[in-house]
């Protein structure tokens, strides 16, 4: 159990290797997106063990803990990584662990080797008929669905009755609306129109599926917040460096108390978010209630204090902060993006309210 940012130093090798690798191959630069050889990059990530880390030993994995997994996503966030790491580092390993081993082992092997890619398709209005086994409806935005080989599809996540978790091979037969997001990532909306689902595509049903879907979505939230946190932390460093250099009215911006206090306020918000992230990391393996609380608290904090911290960085940077070539605007867009994915800020406030303040009915 890690209770302090500093204990992550124990994972020095993992974090340092990740950071070096990302800074070498993915450092911020306007031409980056055009240059990066995404396929080669993915294979290198696999070689670093990123996709095996979350898998249990019995599936040939490295059985890393929550802090290790999140540290990869955090480092990826720092360089504003735009490939769909989240589903493959944090979600697919969990889903595979829940599967029949005979099926899971070969998939885990390929995941670890970077040969297949998963995308997580959050529930939108999906409904699977138990009698006809036909899938209808649309998913919510699925990061990296267009490049994935397999889709993890959350169906009927609102109640145990209709819940199921599906693993489908990516298929052009499914209508897919691809979007570029404002933070540069790709995501798709999948429309399932009376699609026949074979029995063996159903990883879980009913109560089991319901709990698994909650877990996957909480993991998605916590992981996405780790990426956003990394971006924000890097953004603050960038901004502090900038205001030290930038001169206005004959003095460095960093010498103005208003600028100092704004940066100190962002620092306070970022450190609180780091605290929630440490909680999220241990909560990944905690009780469902605690995990849900940590996930929603993180999401709410990101959508409020996190965005405020990022917008303050733009504010003190002045004009350059508004330009597409400069990194800080992309940090803001990354946070804005994460804030809209996997449930809005207000939706997570409402959920957190249900968790923190149980209603009378639940109590009795």
């Amino acid at each position, binding site marked *: 159990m890690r209770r302090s940012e500093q204990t992550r130093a124990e994972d020095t090798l993992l974090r340092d290797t990740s950071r070096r690798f990302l800074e070498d191959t993915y450092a911020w630069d306007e031409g980056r997106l055009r240059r990066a050889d995404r396929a080669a990059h993915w294979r290198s990530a696999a070689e670093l063990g990123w996709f095996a880390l979350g898998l249990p030993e019995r599936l040939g994995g490295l059985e890393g803990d929550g802090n290790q997994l999140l540290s990869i996503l955090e480092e990826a966030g720092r360089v504003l990584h735009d490939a769909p790491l989240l589903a493959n580092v944090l979600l697919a390993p969990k889903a595979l662990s829940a599967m029949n081993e005979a099926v899971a082992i070969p998939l885990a092997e390929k995941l670890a080797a970077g040969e297949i890619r998963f995308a997580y398709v959050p529930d939108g209005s999906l409904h699977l008929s138990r009698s006809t086994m036909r899938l209808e409806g649309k998913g*919510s*935005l699925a990061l990296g669905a267009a490049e994935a080989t397999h889709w993890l599809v959350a169906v009927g996540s609102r109640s145990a009755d209709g819940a199921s978790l599906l693993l489908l091979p990516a298929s052009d037969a499914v209508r897919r*609306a691809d*979007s*570029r*997001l*404002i*933070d540069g990532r790709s*995501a798709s909306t999948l429309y399932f129109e009376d699609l026949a689902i074979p029995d063996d595509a159903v990883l879980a049903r009913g109560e089991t599926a319901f709990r698994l879907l909650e877990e996957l979505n909480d993991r998605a939230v916590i992981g996405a917040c780790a990426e956003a946190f990394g971006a924000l932390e890097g953004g603050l460093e960038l901004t502090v460096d900038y205001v030290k250099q*930038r*001169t*206005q*009215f004959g003095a460095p911006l960093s010498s*103005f108390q*208003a*600028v100092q206090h704004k940066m100190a306020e962002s620092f306070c918000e970022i450190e609180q978010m780091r605290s929630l992230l440490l909680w999220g990391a241990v909560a990944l393996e905690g009780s469902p209630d605690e995990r849900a609380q940590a996930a929603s608290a993180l999401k709410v904090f990101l959508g409020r204090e996190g*965005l405020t911290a990022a*917008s303050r960085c*733009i*504010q003190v940077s*002045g*004009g350059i*902060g*508004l*330009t*597409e*070539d400069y990194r800080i*605007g*992309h940090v*803001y*867009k990354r946070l*804005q*993006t994460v*804030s*809209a*994915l996997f449930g*809005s*800020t*207000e*939706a997570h*406030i*409402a959920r957190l309210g249900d968790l923190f303040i149980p209603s009378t009915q639940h109590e009795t």
Partner: protein
Amino acid sequence: MDAFFTADEIAFRDEVRAFIRENLPTDLAQKTRDGIHLAREDMARWNTILDKRGWAVHHWPTEYGGPGWTPIQRFIFEAECASGDAPPLSVFGLYLVGPTIYTFGSSEQRARYLPGIRSGETFWCQGYSEPDAGSDLAAVRTTARKVEGGWIIDGSKAWTSEGHFADLMICLARTNPNVKPQAGLSLFIVDMKDKGISLQPVITIDSGHSVNTTFMDNVFVPDDGLIGEVDKGWTYAKFLLSHERTNNAQVHRSRREFTRLKDLAAALPGSGGGRLIDEPAMCRRFTLVEANLVSLEITVLRVLADQTEGREPGPEASIVKIIGSELQQRITELAMEVLGEEGIKAEHEGDSLLAQEAQGWTERHLFRRVVTIYAGSNEIQKTIIARSVLGM
């Protein structure tokens, strides 16, 4: 807020409203609704329509073609234009250059430049800020060197909005390096077609192109391109900025956009089956923004009422930039919550109401981070209030 207006003013509002309904082409209204960076020809078309009615330069004195309205009438006119989705008029010519020229320019300059602004044929851009000067105009480094028959200008200007389609620039340049930074500046009219001018587009975080960096290399400006007296440019620039204090509040745009956002949230379903806007948290947020918007409107009206009734506006004039800009950001932040996942897409497909509305809101949300920075950042505004109003 009707209680705030006289019967005459309400009659005037009805007249303006009727004119817009009858004369604003529907395609222009649609374009205004769709995006934030309008094309030159679209702005010009509406300018021409207004000019025919004598309403294009509604805040200019009658001798230069203004309709002779009171500041409150101008408020009403602008509010109606905004709520009717009329394209914004090009801000530099009408609000900045025109008043500069009729106040400080020669009669030749008035005759030569004012008609083009009034009709919408000539587009202007502003050359005040510089890459190293930001909010600190006294740090302007662009130089104007006296030569036979005119001046040679060298330097660069930052944040030249609409520079890529402007005909002329009003440009602040250093004519005397041997005096205090503020004292040695002059104001010039620069032809954007001069071969010494090159523009580099600046793509802003909304991925749009409305801003440029302007490089001036050996640009010739004839003697009659100097506005007023040499070395007085700082005074002229400050005069203008201090006389357009309510403009930056963007109160009409905010009202229009907020109304649209309310309509959108009333048309979208909430998670409980009802309207999105009726969800308690959403309703509460809309309500709080509305309260702030009303207080901004009245604050602006206080300033304009003072002007209308012949008084110098009170210290409330110094707050409208701050509260107006913060409100603009709160509105687009609320929009992002309303739009949900649609708001984070860079492009929007389909003809759903949500997809149609999203493009504009996403662009606005990102681009509007600028409003607390430009025109004197809000931090600078607060320092001004503390020093000038509170005497600290």
